């Protein structure tokens, strides 16, 4: 069994959203919902300002609150550690959404089920990379088996100081970050979903 995880190197993320777009296309994610997105966070005061780009997604936590909250067994852990949701077993009581400290789950009205990042298990089962990893032009996302010391992810995790998002939540995420500028605490109160309430509809007036 592998222990699949992802390492995101914030030093090389350029905020291009190629990953978000690839993910949207891969899963037909409805407007207003996100499995994967990139947070733009500004820090400092003029003239010493900086902008961080922080890609976020489900952390496929080792101690996944969504998994233990689900009353119907729809949230499952696959053999390689990915946490996924079985559409047919979901009755949309939203216990997983209420429990996830990362707001990584949304209601997919079209599928009639809760939905979230699956680490592209349909692709990885065929030996391919998740869509976001394939799309990233700077190779700042590395996906693989955290338990395999030869894997690129394990090598890069060992060579760098890695951290996780919202460590205090105690969920033991399997999405690791290289974050030398300490940007993750800036999105401590945020989640994967984006507040789109102020967005214009796009319909002609």
């Amino acid at each position, binding site marked *: 069994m592998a222990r699949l995880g992802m390492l995101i190197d914030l030093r090389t993320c350029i905020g291009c959203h190629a990953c978000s777009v690839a993910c949207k296309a891969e899963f037909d994610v409805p407007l207003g919902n996100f499995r994967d997105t990139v947070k733009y966070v500004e820090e400092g005061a003029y003239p010493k300002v900086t902008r961080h780009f922080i890609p976020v997604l489900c952390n496929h936590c080792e101690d996944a*609150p969504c*998994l*233990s*909250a*689900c*009353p*119907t*067994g*729809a949230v499952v852990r696959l053999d390689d550690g990915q946490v996924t949701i079985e559409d047919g*077993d*979901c*009755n*949309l*009581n*939203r*216990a997983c*959404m*209420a*429990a996830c*400290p990362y*707001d990584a789950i*949304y*209601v997919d009205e079209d599928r*009639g*089920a809760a939905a979230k990042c699956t680490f592209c298990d349909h692709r990885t089962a065929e030996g391919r990379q998740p869509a976001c990893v394939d799309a990233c032009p700077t190779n700042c996302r590395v996906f693989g088996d955290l338990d395999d010391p030869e894997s690129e992810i394990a090598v890069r995790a060992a060579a760098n100081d890695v951290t996780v998002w919202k460590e205090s939540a105690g969920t033991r995420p399997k999405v690791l970050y290289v974050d030398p500028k300490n940007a993750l605490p800036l999105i401590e*109160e*945020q*989640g994967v*979903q984006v507040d789109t309430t102020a967005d214009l509809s796009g319909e002609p007036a």
Partner: protein
Amino acid sequence: MTVAWGPLLAAYVVLVGLPTGLTLMTWWVGRSGASVRLERIGAWGALVALVAISVLLVADLGRPERFHLMLVRFDNLASPISWGAKLIALKILLLLLVVHAVERRRPPDRPLPRLTKVVAVLLLAVSFALALYPAALLARSWASPLAGGAGVLFVLTALLMGAAVVVLLGGEGRTALLGLLAASAVALAVEALALAGRPGDRLLLAELTTGGSAPLFWGVAVGAGLLLPAAGLLTLPRNRVVTALCAVAVLAGAAATRYLLFAVGS
């Protein structure tokens, strides 16, 4: 952050205190020789209220037609909702048995058969579990940070609701009501002290006592729900109108407390 549970779940958390408290308080008030009328209304009232509240819960599901999955699936016993759904179904079943026994006995003041008494004891145990259940349910949600540690308050507010209904029905619940009001005041004070002692929780306490929730907290939960009825029941113990008004105020106060436990900090 997306708030996953909205008004219907809030209504559930508030209202579920009623059938729970009604079962426990009709038993308590009637334990030394039940008033037949109270026993009957208690059983029917709890049944009707619980069924109505269950409809709320089902309506809150995005896929109501798959409600049964919560009852027939046993894969995840770490899930409070899995337990809660099964306990609610069990309580409805037990209440149906009690209602059936109460309606069938002739003459109506004959004591209930032994088997029904066993059912009644089971019913009390399930009701007590359901009184604690909102705390277990909301402890898993980051949106209700106050609720997880508030099991005692959920039990006390359920009992207060039950005692208030008993009093409104003409039962002798005044002493119980006064005792519960005192216990609730102590529990609220202890909860406030605990929050004040933890740096992360002081913001929650501030929201409750001086922030946007303060009018509901001081005005309804504390003022109308605890102080007014305590004063009314102590100073005019024999005045029926005052007693009834105090019971209504207790209901409003307990409902407000439960709502605040659900909503503050989300």
